[in-house]
């Protein structure tokens, strides 16, 4: 039984290594510092969006509009900067507030008017796409006028100095170690099962990954700012889910909404809150995705909602709600981003890319179902 749990705990990691090895044998450039930096930036937008999706799926809802939302918010910000001579910070701030209001509104309609999230956000998908195209007038709108730099464009072009990233990595590894050790000690003194070897192995592996990442990045231009943003968002969402009342309520609503209501959980406010946070995250993902492309076009953000949902599901999030973790979602997003990046590197045709990603999604979920069945039996 122990071995099986360990296998399941690390199954996503194993899948990740296998996929990495596959692309590396196909083209050694896959693991080059340059490509990994590229991968980190590509990943950041999808992964940030996936974390937002986790917040919405946990209480048992879904958001199909986020891909269009990413395009729209990134597009509005680009138009403000390029066509209306706004400076980047107010443009980003104003559009983030706009996104927050839009998504809070959708959450409100879903809970107060009892229209299923699937339908409302499907409507959002179409409406946002149309508005996005209107706003950019079907043209290509750069995130910074001319060839200048601004805060908007720097989101995906800025790299941290090596000294800073080394210090950050060392700090993160130390804090992670302390937190894990403290958690383990507490569990042990409370008489809960906690495998010290497993805890150490987790910490050791995460330290290796962080250290290796910083080391490899330093051989290119340094750690990308986008990767740091992703790290901060992941940490915030993790703390929200594990340590706060809102996080606990999200799990409770997804586990059994009626029971949560009777238990005194303010169900409507909790779900609307999740959608509000989703609004902020959509804006952030919109800036990252648009900045990565350098400009807003009619296809910015297209199908990103599906990548986000896929990342959640691959990472073990239950679409019925009530189950899912930040770490799982990050792994899921990384697997999806690696597939896309690796196939681009191998010059796989777009048709085959779609087919491969779809098959991997189906395969991953099937394997997860199989593994969890054999665990409970």
């Amino acid at each position, binding site marked *: 039984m122990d071995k099986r749990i360990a296998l399941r705990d690390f199954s996503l990691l194993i899948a990740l290594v296998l996929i990495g090895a596959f692309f590396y044998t196909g083209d050694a450039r896959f693991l080059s510092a340059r490509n990994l930096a590229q991968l980190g930036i590509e990943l950041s937008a999808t992964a940030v969006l996936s974390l937002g999706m986790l917040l919405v799926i946990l209480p048992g809802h879904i958001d199909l509009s986020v891909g269009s939302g990413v395009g729209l918010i990134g597009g509005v910000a680009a138009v403000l900067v390029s066509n209306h001579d706004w400076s980047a910070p107010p443009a980003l701030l104003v559009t983030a507030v706009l996104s927050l209001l839009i998504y809070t509104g959708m959450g409100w309609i879903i809970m107060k008017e009892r229209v299923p999230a699937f339908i409302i956000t499907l409507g959002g998908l179409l409406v946002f796409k149309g508005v996005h195209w209107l706003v950019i007038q079907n043209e290509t709108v750069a995130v910074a006028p001319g060839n200048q730099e601004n805060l908007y464009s720097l989101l995906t072009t800025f790299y941290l100095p090596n000294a800073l990233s080394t210090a950050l990595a060392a700090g993160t590894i130390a804090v992670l170690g302390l937190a894990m050790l403290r958690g383990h000690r507490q569990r042990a003194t409370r008489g809960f099962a906690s495998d010290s070897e497993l805890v150490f192995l987790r910490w050791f592996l995460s330290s290796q990954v962080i250290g290796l990442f910083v080391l490899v990045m330093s051989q290119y231009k340094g750690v990308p700012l986008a990767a740091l943003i992703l790290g901060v968002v992941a940490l915030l969402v993790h703390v929200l889910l594990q340590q*706060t*009342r809102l996080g606990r309520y999200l799990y409770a609503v997804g586990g059994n909404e009626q029971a949560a209501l009777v*238990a005194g959980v*303010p169900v409507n406010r909790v779900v609307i809150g999740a959608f509000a946070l989703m609004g902020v995250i959509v804006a952030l993902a919109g800036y990252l995705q648009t900045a990565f492309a350098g400009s807003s076009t009619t296809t910015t953000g297209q199908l990103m909602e599906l990548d986000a949902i896929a990342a959640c599901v691959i990472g073990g999030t239950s679409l019925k709600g*009530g189950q899912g973790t930040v770490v799982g979602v990050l792994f899921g997003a990384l697997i999806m981003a690696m597939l896309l990046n690796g196939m681009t590197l191998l010059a796989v045709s777009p048709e085959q890319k779609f087919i491969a990603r779809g098959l991997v999604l189906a395969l991953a979920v099937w394997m997860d179902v199989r593994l969890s069945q054999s665990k409970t039996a």
Partner: protein
Amino acid sequence: MAGPILEAQSITKRYPGVVALRDVSFQLQAGEVHALCGENGAGKSTLIKVLGGVLPHDSYTGQLACDGKPVRFESIRDAEAAGIAVIHQELALVDEMTVAENVFLGNEPSRFGFVQHERMHVETQKVLERFKLEIDPTVRVGELGMGQKQLVEIARALAKHARILILDEPTSALSDKEVRALLAIIQELRAAGVSSIYISHKLDEVFQLADRITVLRDGQSVFTAPSRETDTSSIVQHMVGRRVDELFPPRRGSLGDVLLSVRGLSVAPRAGEAPRLRDISFEVRGGQVLGIGGLMGAGRSELLMHLFGCYGARLAGEVRFRGQPLPENDPAGNVRAGMVLVTEDRKRYGLSLDAGVGFNLSLSALRELSRNGFIDGERELQENRRMMESMSIKAASLEVKVGTLSGGNQQKVVLGRALMTEPKVVLLDEPTRGIDIGAKSEIYALVRGLTEQGLAVVLVSSELPELIGLADRILMLCEGQLGGSFDAREVTQAELLSAAMSKSRVTVSAGEHG
């Protein structure tokens, strides 16, 4: 009598941290009704899961045999193929489908791949007529009451030509008339050679029906005897392993201030519909238990749910909590103010079954257990441990999934969650439904303890002895209206019953008998 039609030998089933069954052997003869008694967590549900094929053969040790031949059940289908049908406590019907479609669910009569609706209706009609119950096979199950749903479930098993029925608490939600009809049909089936395993906490039914009685306690089979050779008190003694001298603790303490008052309350299911509750007034004081009785469908649960803010639209009237008007439709606000609800439907309104015991226990009290939105993990753990101990919840740890606990222990988790908020008014809807005498007396003692601390309790129950034994005042509801209000110390069951039945109902039932 020939050999046993169904036999279980030395069944042992372990769950993580708990041995649910320990070397249990059980025999069912052809044409026998064999009652299975035991407290919550005694292992009845697990034994049923073994016999009904819910637990696959390799997940436990021991042997099963049908007609003397060894059998291996890998799934429910295998058990059904052997003629065994389990009717579970928590119903598994599809509300959106008709009665006939439910009866034949997964088993639809078809020709060339097309479902034969007409044949389905006719066959269902035949089965229903054997119950002497007028349920239209074409009506949607969602429109039926709880009692009628139970009968549809039984009809479904009979339509599959089951020769062994396993009935898990079949009468816990049925009215007296429905119970009589059910007991009659089980006896009729026995005459026709269909054996039954009958699980019930209602010992009067057990003695009325069963040929033999087996008692399980703590996962072991402690007693088996023909029902003629034993009696209620010895069964109870075997169940609890000790004597239950007094079920209801004596009343003590004095009444405090009025905590909850209701004036002229009328409620409709939805705005614009006909009222479900009409002109109801009462008040409850600290230290008092207010019992609410009535027949099924009288509106008892609806009244509690409305007070708590999760049912219906208020047409008229006022609800005051500690002198302040109570807002409508705000359960979270009610919990904050100090009013909690414990519902009868655990599966639907009770618990997050996939989450842990601790997660569920502290859910209502998180506001008190957190600062600036961050949960104080240390305090949460302390409170959870304290509650788990004081409610004597039987689970290996706070992290065990609630769904794996027995019904009685789940009910204790629901109660514990409510009490952790330190409420002033506790609304209890059938708190002892489907749980055994031992756990019942624990809950009665708990309710007394609450009133001694000055809390007010509103208790909805369909068991009249429970109302009389536990409540101070009793309201009887009748078709959504007050049928009468009584002092529990001076009232008789007959008086309560007549208050629960309107004149029109009495004539209907008299007509049926005549």
